[in-house]
């Protein structure tokens, strides 16, 4: 990204990677166990073993991809606007001026809560704006929310 490197990009907490990894590991284990048993019952031990190995390989590949996705997330709160970049296959960079912000939403789903993380989302009047930062530690999320709200209020421009 050649976007102004004057300020350092911030990244989501390593907790996001831990969470994603845990999700991949759990789902791989569940799927491998299920299909392993199914093939074991239907076609014998060799088929069961092969299916488990294939699924574990798929899981490993997927976790590599998720790792890259996690690394692609970054954000930067500049003077006038917030930059959020993400994506491996499709790389996206959003520039959202604080003045256009309608509200800031902080959400934490059940899995996110297990890892003490939350997601900050910036809403503008445009549905496509797409400024979402996942995997922020609770303190950091609250700080960012307050900062954004403050900046938004001082620069409000509405529609």
């Amino acid at each position: 990204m050649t976007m102004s490197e004057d300020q350092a990009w911030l990244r989501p907490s390593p907790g996001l990677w831990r969470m994603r990894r845990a999700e991949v590991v759990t789902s791989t284990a569940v799927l491998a166990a299920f299909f392993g048993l199914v093939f074991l019952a239907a076609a014998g031990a060799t088929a069961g073993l092969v299916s488990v190995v294939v699924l574990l390989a798929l899981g490993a590949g997927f976790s590599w991809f998720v790792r890259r996705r996690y690394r692609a997330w970054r954000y930067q709160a500049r003077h006038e606007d917030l930059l959020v970049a993400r994506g491996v296959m499709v790389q996206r960079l959003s520039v959202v001026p604080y003045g256009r912000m309608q509200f800031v939403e902080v959400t934490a789903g059940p899995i996110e809560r297990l890892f003490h993380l939350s997601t900050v989302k910036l809403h503008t009047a445009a549905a496509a704006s797409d400024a979402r930062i996942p995997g922020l530690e609770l303190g950091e999320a609250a700080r960012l929310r307050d900062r954004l709200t403050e900046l938004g209020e001082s620069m409000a421009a509405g529609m």
Partner: protein
Amino acid sequence: MTTDNPSPETPDDGWQRLHPLSPLARVGRLVPALVLLFLVSTVHSKAENGRAETDYLVLITLASAVYGYVHWMVTRWRFEGDTLRIETGLIRKDSRRLPLARIQAVDIVRPLLARILGVSELRIRVAGSGSTDGKLAYLAESQAAELRLMLLAGHHDPVVAASANTGLPMAMVTTSRLLGSVLLSLVSIILMGTVATLAVLDQFEPRTAAAMAGFLAVYLLSFAGVVWRRLSGQYAFIAVEGPEGVRIRRGLLQTISETVPYARIQAVRQVEPLLWRPFGWCRLEVDIAGATARNQRGEGTAVVRKALLPVGSQQDSWHLLARLLGAPDPERTPPPRRAKLKAPLSFHFLAAGHDGTHAVCVTGRINRATTWVPLEKSQSIRRVQGPLQRPLGLATVHVDVAGKRARAEFRDREVAEADRLVEELSELSRVARLSSPRSPVASDGTHGVPPSGWYPDPSGRHEQRYWHDGRWTEHVGDGGRRSSEALIPTP
């Protein structure tokens, strides 16, 4: 307020009645349903060799006539200071007070039978609700027009007041052109093609043709419905310039009046479908931020797309565009040639450009669409690079405006240019936003006050009337001569 039809029952305390022909016009609303019912029952009775079924149609008509008459008897309205009060209902009394200051819009609706009878319906919308709040069905045409003017002109909000105006036309659509444009649309071509095929098939294989007609009947009818709605909805389309926005009047069976406020325009799109291109026709659409507070729940503020010109020449379209956005004509450049590998079809028209205040982009292959976005309305800037674009060194930059679909796309630009565009467009939007000459009121999505000056006279009695400090004055002008006459004549 004078009425053309003083009914003997009208007492002196200001209560007024609806037009005596209202019950008849009300029954008229049932006519399409009755005709349908009649057709169905005739087909039915033909099959069963009986004819008793038409009796209840007469009963329905009579019942609705009686209901209409009772409704007319018990409905009355009057002004009570700054409120319009409408009372109705025989068993359940319904009394509404509509404060003049909160009136958002007054529409005159004229269904077919009402138009024949010379009456029209007045619908009044009050701020803070999306639906019709007050309805006077029906009033004499002249009375409805006068009442509308009165409701709007006595209003505190200048923009709403100004919508009483009837000004000079900016664009209109002739019936022949509308007909041509509708016939040259995909839907009607499919419709006509299918009907023709069935007709030909009928010559050789009548049975198959009948079976297919039965099978396709639903689709054919719905297609015909689409074509008909386009035709009747945009019939006699006329756009008129007013101080607060473009006023549109259209409709065949029902006349619809609406206003496109300049301040709320998010994007303007000019679409040139393939079949229209030989004739140089195009369609102009605008995206307007919603007027009500409804749907403010984040996922895109309520934005409606409206046809500003259902069909017109490039010149008409350009004329309207000049008035809406001040003739923005930034230089458009095509993307690099290698973008053809990524977008083999749409590359043909693909172009984009921007100047200090507007971004413009051209997309589409079958329907060529040119979108203009005022940078002051931009909500966010996005740079997107897909897996096909990366090896080619291309990226797309979006300028998002309020709403779900509205945006300008700088599609498939060089990476270096895209990066530069992101910076440049963010900066230009920021400057445009700060320097946009609007009153503080305007910042929350409402409108500013139109500048003082001569505008077409809302009453239509004179050519022009002076608008000053947010209200109409008594100064009028006719062919250069000035005189004075109050907007609402004192009785």
